[in-house]
């Protein structure tokens, strides 16, 4: 039985094997395209995890030459489905057909042999090694002597053919995130992938890099290969895909042709209700200065300059959005303002008081809320209860403690109030916080950070990785805080988010602000250019006040 299946896989995957990927596969897939047969078909896939059905009888198919977007909110089951196709999980029920024949995919190796290639959200690369070495990793066909020469040659060929510009001899750590992603794509193509699965590929890229990626994907599919594009961003799905399959709560809502649908319809299918795309921003009078940053400098963990002379002022009732590709000093800027990192130069004032290099405790006491970038690593104690996480910063306040003893009854009461106020979905207040979903974890953090009427909110990527519903909720909350007079520093890679809720936009590149522009005057192309560091539009009067 077992050997029969392997034989079958071998037979199916034979044409896909690397080396002759150029000619033979084109012929093979063109034939299939003519017959209109699916390259991959998944039938009745069921996958249960303790307490949830991640995939509930899912039918999904990909045709040769198409870009198929798999759209859904977080936890809808997109990644689970693709992990099943790629052999990381085994389905509890259901069948998978590749090229018309039924296959059993037990491991990523089986999947690769059956012609799958997957680029995970978090890259699987060995950082000190070269591009070619990473691609050669795990290949069984390598020659004993000088195995890399051949690989390098073929990598160069592949880059040429698909516009995947990358130097095979470069070390991974020297590459930008966009280039690393290209290495992952080449790796998959090199192994003969006919179906390329990309898990949220644009989350780490600049608008320019996204455009490049889309060009690459179009060239790849021209030859009959298929791309499965996992995303929760509607605009992207509409732009790049030929067909879209929408998942919700582990079920397929529909599979539609992209040209026949629109953003509103997709959002409705994805969330299950109408979604507001335009958030209402009431005019708010700008109050006094809350945060003043003067010529601030700070180093990264590696000791390299990461924040290089930043100055700005943020007032009551104002949202300043900081746009930029991750790794341009945003994290360090946030950490210095919240007291988690020492400044190497410059000053930070909160409500007129110099708080440069003060302890986090002191800064919290000044009324600064911090929605951290890595919400589980920093914003939460995963094994402790929801109630305890809600008082993580206030446990010492006279409200929750008396003579060193915690007032548990009161803590529980407040926890219940906040759970309902912020609609945190949790079995109980005693549940360990780690069991909550991503969106609910963020609600928990917001409930804690926003309940004490902060004067300044430092929000780092507050909706990163969250679904449409949670994103909308969190943005509304931030806008409400703005109306209540809070000053908000919003760091985000999501340009749409920055454009839709901030009053002013600062673009950060290599530790400096490329400019601060009022949102009304900002154009997305301009911001994109500034993110790439090419344009300065510094308005001196804006900052020297």
């Amino acid at each position, binding site marked *: 039985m077992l050997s029969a299946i392997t034989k079958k896989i071998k037979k199916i995957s034979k044409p896909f094997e690397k080396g002759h990927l150029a000619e033979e596969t084109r012929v093979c897939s063109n034939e299939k395209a003519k017959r209109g047969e699916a390259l991959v078909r998944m039938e009745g896939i069921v996958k249960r995890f303790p307490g949830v059905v991640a995939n509930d009888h899912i039918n999904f198919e990909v045709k040769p030459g198409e870009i198929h977007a798999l759209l859904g909110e977080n936890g809808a089951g997109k990644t689970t489905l693709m992990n099943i196709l790629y052999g990381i999980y085994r389905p509890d029920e259901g069948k998978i057909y590749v090229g018309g024949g039924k296959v059993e995919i037990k491991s990523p190796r089986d999947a690769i042999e059956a012609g799958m290639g997957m680029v995970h959200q978090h890259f699987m690369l060995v950082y000190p090694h070269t591009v070619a070495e990473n691609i050669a990793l795990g290949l069984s066909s390598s020659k004993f002597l000088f195995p890399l020469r051949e690989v390098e040659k073929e990598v160069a060929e592949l880059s040429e053919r698909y516009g995947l510009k990358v130097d095979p001899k470069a070390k991974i750590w020297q590459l930008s995130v966009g280039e690393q992603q290209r290495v992952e794509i080449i790796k998959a193509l090199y192994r003969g992938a006919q179906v390329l699965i990309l898990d949220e590929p644009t989350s780490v890229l600049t608008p320019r890099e996204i455009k490049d990626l889309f060009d690459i994907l179009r060239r790849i599919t021209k030859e009959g290969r298929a791309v499965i594009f996992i995303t929760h961003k509607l605009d992207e799905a509409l732009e790049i895909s030929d067909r879209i399959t929408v998942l919700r709560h582990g079920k397929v809502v529909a599979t539609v042709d992209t040209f026949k649908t629109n953003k509103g319809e997709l959002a409705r299918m994805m969330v299950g209700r109408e979604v507001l795309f335009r958030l209402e921003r009431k005019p708010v009078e700008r109050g006094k200065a809350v945060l003043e940053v003067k010529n601030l400098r700070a180093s990264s963990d590696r000791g390299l300059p990461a924040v290089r002379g930043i100055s700005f002022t943020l007032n009551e009732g104002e949202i300043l959005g900081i746009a930029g590709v991750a790794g341009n000093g945003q994290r360090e800027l946030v950490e210095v303002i919240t007291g988690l990192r020492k400044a190497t130069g410059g000053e930070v004032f909160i409500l007129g008081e110099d708080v440069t290099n003060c302890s*986090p*405790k002191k800064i919290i006491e000044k009324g600064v809320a911090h929605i951290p970038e890595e919400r589980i690593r920093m914003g939460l*104690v995963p094994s402790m209860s929801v109630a305890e996480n809600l008082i993580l910063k206030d446990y010492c306040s006279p409200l929750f403690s008396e003579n060193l003893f*915690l007032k548990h009854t009161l803590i529980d009461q407040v926890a219940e109030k906040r759970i309902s106020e912020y609609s945190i979905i949790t079995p109980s207040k005693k549940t360990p916080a780690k069991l909550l979903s991503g969106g609910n974890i963020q609600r928990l953090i917001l409930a804690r950070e926003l309940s004490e009427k902060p004067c300044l909110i430092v929000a780092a990527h507050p909706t990163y990785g969250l679904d449409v519903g949670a994103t909308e909720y969190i943005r509304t909350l931030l806008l409400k805080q703005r109306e209540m007079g809070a000053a908000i520093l919003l760091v985000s890679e999501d340009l749409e988010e920055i454009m839709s809720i901030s009053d002013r936009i600062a673009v950060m590149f290599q530790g400096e602000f490329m400019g601060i522009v009022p949102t009304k005057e900002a154009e997305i192309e301009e911001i994109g250019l500034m993110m790439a560091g090419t344009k300065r539009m510094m308005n001196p009067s804006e900052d020297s006040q």
Partner: protein
Amino acid sequence: MIPKLKIEKRPIVSSSVTLAVSILSMLLALIAVAFVFLGYGVDPTYAYQKIFIGSFGSLTGFSETIVKAIPLMICGIGLAVAFKALVWNIGAEGQLLMGAIAATGIALYVIPEASSVLLLPSMFIGGFLAGAVWGVIPGVLKAKLKANEVITTLMMNYIASNLVEYLIYGPWKGAMEWGFPITNEFPLSAWLPYLPIGMGRIHYPTLILALSLAVLTYVFIMRTTLGFEVRVMGENPDAAKYAGMSYFKTVILVMLISGGLAGLAGVGEVAGIHHRLRYPKGISPPPGYGYTAIIVTCLGRLNPLAIILSSLLFGGLLVGGDAIQVIGLPFAAIGLFNGAILFFVLGGELLTRYKIIIRWRG
């Protein structure tokens, strides 16, 4: 039919699973050591019978078990606080010896004339402070200079041990002890009282102290703001920093408590059993209460109340060790036990967090 093994993560670690795994790991350790007994040509069931009867089967045996359990319990409770905050204090042994030194100094040199009511509490306070200092030094080194506390606390043990030797061979050598390396005997006012005749050497004030410390520490960890900080620090140091908790303060606090408690255990030994300072191995017989307490704490899963039970078990093993020597096994066999139990407890840790599913399918 080939069984399929699947490992899945448990969403919640329940206390019943933890208990079951603890008991399972002990049973596995017993089975593993049984093979060693077989190697010596001794019937394991006979050997275990001997150990059990030796330590739990008679009043004298059981009272001796409690005597050994007292220092293990106090040290273990202290270690639990440090381990909760992910501070790996391996130095309970040295901290215990420092407590013994301080108690001896107070009893023989500082206020030897004082009455029990004054002298005994002074000895305990002095012992706590001495142990605390011995714990706080590596704590400061860790918090300020990032010195690995496993190494520094371990090294502090040797310093303490050598200090004891220096004192008993040198300035504190007893004038009335025929040149033996021991101090003079404490004045009677510095002797802890025993239970009535026939109940062995149970210095009950220390036992009461140990039991109350277990409860107090449990309350401290679960109910106080400082305990909250300790737990947050142990579960997620980044979140502790983010929430404005002071890393320095917490590290110093837990080292102070765990060092101080070990110091108290040292006071109990010299004031309750030996009534003088003697060779380190005399006060804390090998492998050393401070080291065995590490295993006691792990088996008790850092829960002060569970440590009461696990210290009794290990007290019993130490006493049983004497019993198996009678049937021709070396005392080191007990060391094997300690090792095997720690090994299986740490291995069992995996089972508390993951479950193994066996499917009998073709």
